[in-house]
């Protein structure tokens, strides 16, 4: 909702010839109102083929609190013969994910035939830059054009008819090379590494809390990656919340890194296993494997997992039944859950329980 508001504001300010004055960026996905009073500090430079001069990556902070990163880019966009200069400002969040862009006053984005970007072109460019799986990732610059279809009279970036169909669907029409150049800048590995290293160097209690409180999944994963052992105790409620709600990649990371002294606490096992019903298929398998490797599993944890037995797939069912077989004691509720699963006609793997002959 917030981002759509920003997009609306952006569209309002955006004319056919781009921005006229300093204001909110055209596109900016973070819930931050950019102010003149924000501090800027340069964290590094990058020079790559096509740049007119090295570009600076700057950290934007408010009263010392890091907010995001930006860079004013001045780069050439070239085909084999023609080059033009493109001016643009790119934004990344604190962990190096692209979050928006802005045009530079008096330098609206143009296509190769010098036509200015339309309103929808600006929007389409942002959509393209948000897509980390864009087909542009897989292409060399030389693969962008179907050379057999280029006519001598065509202006290069305007030869949309010759742009390979699969690429054409994603890029800004008539701005093939600009789209390509900007996508590879937005996802430039060196910039991302530079940003992450800088954020990591600033990590303190306040910033960790800020990252954990954010609704950006990348922020939380970054925070967990930088946990010291005691942080798992200190921020227990945060990682438990992430286990319940966050992306599978984060869940797996947490489960893998829970310190042993926490994990061997029955109460922690019970809390983690109590969330089993919220987990995706891969996290479930990972947790079952973790339980397999744990010598001392709480019988209450097994009971919690047994509630979800009917939602397990074939291998998980076998894995869990194997786990139960190795457990010295089971609660009555666990036995009851197995019995119910065995009798549940909607449970497609109930026959595995029968094969285990578990209830006898």
């Amino acid at each position, binding site marked *: 909702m917030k981002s759509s508001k920003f997009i609306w504001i952006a569209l309002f300010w955006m004319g056919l010839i781009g921005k006229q004055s300093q204001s909110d960026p055209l596109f900016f996905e973070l819930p931050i109102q950019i102010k003149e009073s924000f501090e800027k500090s340069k964290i590094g430079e990058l020079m790559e083929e096509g740049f007119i001069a090295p570009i600076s990556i700057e950290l934007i902070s408010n009263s010392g609190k890091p907010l995001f990163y930006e860079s004013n880019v001045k780069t050439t966009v070239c085909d084999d013969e023609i080059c033009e200069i493109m001016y643009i400002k790119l934004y990344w969040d604190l962990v190096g994910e692209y979050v928006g862009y802005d045009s530079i006053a008096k330098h609206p984005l143009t296509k190769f035939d010098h036509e200015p970007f339309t309103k929808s072109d600006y929007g389409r460019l942002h959509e393209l830059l948000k897509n980390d*799986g864009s087909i542009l*990732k*897989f292409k060399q610059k030389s693969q962008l054009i179907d050379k057999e279809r280029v006519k001598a009279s065509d202006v290069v970036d305007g030869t949309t008819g010759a742009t390979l169909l699969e690429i054409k669907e994603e890029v800004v029409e008539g701005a093939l090379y600009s789209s390509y150049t900007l996508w590879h800048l937005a996802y430039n590995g060196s910039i991302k590494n530079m940003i992450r290293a800088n954020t990591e160097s600033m990590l303190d209690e306040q910033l960790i809390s800020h990252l954990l409180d954010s609704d950006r999944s990348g922020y939380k994963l970054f925070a967990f990656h930088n946990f010291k052992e005691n942080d798992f105790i200190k921020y227990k409620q945060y990682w438990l919340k992430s286990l319940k709600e966050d*992306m599978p990649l984060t869940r797996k990371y947490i489960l893998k890194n829970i310190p042993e002294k926490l994990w061997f606490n029955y109460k922690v096992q019970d809390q983690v296993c109590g969330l089993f019903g919220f987990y995706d*298929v891969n996290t*479930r*398998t990972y947790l079952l494997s973790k339980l397999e490797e744990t010598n001392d599993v709480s019988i209450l944890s097994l009971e919690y997992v047994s509630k979800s037995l009917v939602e397990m797939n074939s291998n998980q069912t076998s894995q869990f039944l194997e786990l139960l077989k190795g457990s010295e004691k089971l609660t009555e509720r666990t036995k009851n859950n197995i019995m119910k699963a065995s009798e549940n006609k909607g449970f497609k793997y109930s026959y595995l329980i029968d094969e285990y002959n578990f209830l006898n």
Partner: protein
Amino acid sequence: MIYRIFGFLLLSNFFLQFSISQTVLIEAESFDDPGGWVVDPQFVEQMGSPYLMAHGMGNPVDDAHTKFQLQESGDYHIWVRSKNWAPGDWEAPGRFQVAINGQTLPETLGLTPGWSWEYAGKMKLDDGDTNIDLIDQTGFNGRCDAIFFSTHKEAPPRGNSELAAWRMIESKEASSPEESLEFDLVVVGGGIAGCATAIAAAEQGLKVALIHDRPVLGGNASSEIRVHTLGIYGHFERILKMLDTEHYPNGSPEAYKDEIKRHQNVEKYENIHLFTNWRAYDANTEGSRITSVDARHTSEGKRIRFIAPRFVDSTGDGWIGYWAGADFMYGRESVDTYGEAYEEWGELWSPEEADDFVMGSSVLWRTVKGQAAVDFPMVPWAEEVAESHEATEGTWKWELSRLDLHQIDDAEEIRDHMLKAIYGSFANAKKGEGTENLKFEWISYLVGKRESRRLEGDYIFTFNDVTDQRKFPDSVVMEIREVDVHYQQNLKDEDKPDFLSEAIFYKTPQYYIPYRSLYSKNIENLFMAGRNFSCSHIGLGGPRVMRTTGQMGAAVGIAAVICEKYGIDPREVYTDHLEEYMALIESQKNYNTIPPKK
């Protein structure tokens, strides 16, 4: 021990009961006329046998038919080994019936989760000619492994090991194959790598057996899977041009044209003995050497023992090495195992701790616009996978890897999951506008695998060999293709369908693969060529494509020639004859000999 005795007594009692009954076992894959059913031998190692499948893409297929001689009249109980491949609170998708001598048995089959013997009914049968028909009801991948007739009402065993023992007795099969054949080199797997091996070795005069479990050559590049070949030719342009494909979109029927070319080229070598529709099922060893490989015809059931001094594992899944006891790898190594970090991609590229998130398998598919509107049936059993996803064609991104699924052991479940994704996504698309005339043109029923077992060689090729652009004295394969490693989209966003993947590209200049990655470190006479060569998970990311694996094949074929010349094992080509070997590899660029015609 006591359990073994008890188990033996139980099994003996079981077989005794059968021995006093009249019984007949008919393997479905050996039907005289499969009609519209297809023979599926992909999962023999997991469920015990090739089977017939009604792959009608939603349209019931023509009946399969066979005839056999019943020795004695009697009242026969009839069981059918089948499986409900999408169990749940809906009608099973793969339903079918059996008719005996034109009389359809009332029981609907394909209803039980997991492979099992479903009771089809009882019939009074006279001795003599007995006809069986399989009648597909849905066109949605009903499957029949075998049909069993017995005058005694006792279902055959369900468990895999008991079933295998029972099957051998029922079919009166000896423990070893009836026929033995000898060759200079036995190549198992007729993908691009296996074909390239066979050609390279045959051109230098070796008598080669090329064993392949499908009717057509090419593996992932065949018309049955339809992935285009990528990569460069390296030293072997001439050989690989006989085998590769144009750069058509994956799934295109243009694959047929290249397949014809491939067959014509392989078949013109009279010293390549082609065994299509033969699936290897064991490798026999003496010490750390393979003495022979046993294979079975996928529909006729005949068996051959292939004897040779050297063998090539181009099976993709590394089966020959696995059976022979070769060291192998599976899964993603931890980032520190070989130091393969790609910093900005973290866990998605290489995990802190080793896991089984290998690159997944794909099932490609296509639709076509017909002249008139075509309905597509409701597929409630597909909704749990497809959810609201809509699609009218498949791409390489239709791929499945999950922590609970092994790419070999669970390959059937992976294939079936992808079928649900395809049927469900297409059904969703059909509900929208503009899709009225769309219908399926083709869905592969073969799993197109990217990664599974990798056999360990004297050298393990890793990402570092790419980043360092390391050259070796035995560099026999070269490549410029990006290192391209996949991950499932739903790892980053749980709302994404679990059957779609994403790729991470590491762009690179030229890199090289040494010959030492192409033979086993502990099975003395075993080469490998193809995606099961010796590499790390990340190492596989670049050279897993088929022109590169073809280069491996050609390099192995030529190494086999050196081995034959000196009577040596693969390792000694590197230690004792490298100069001669590399000269022969180099000469491939200028090799103009026209191979002999049949």
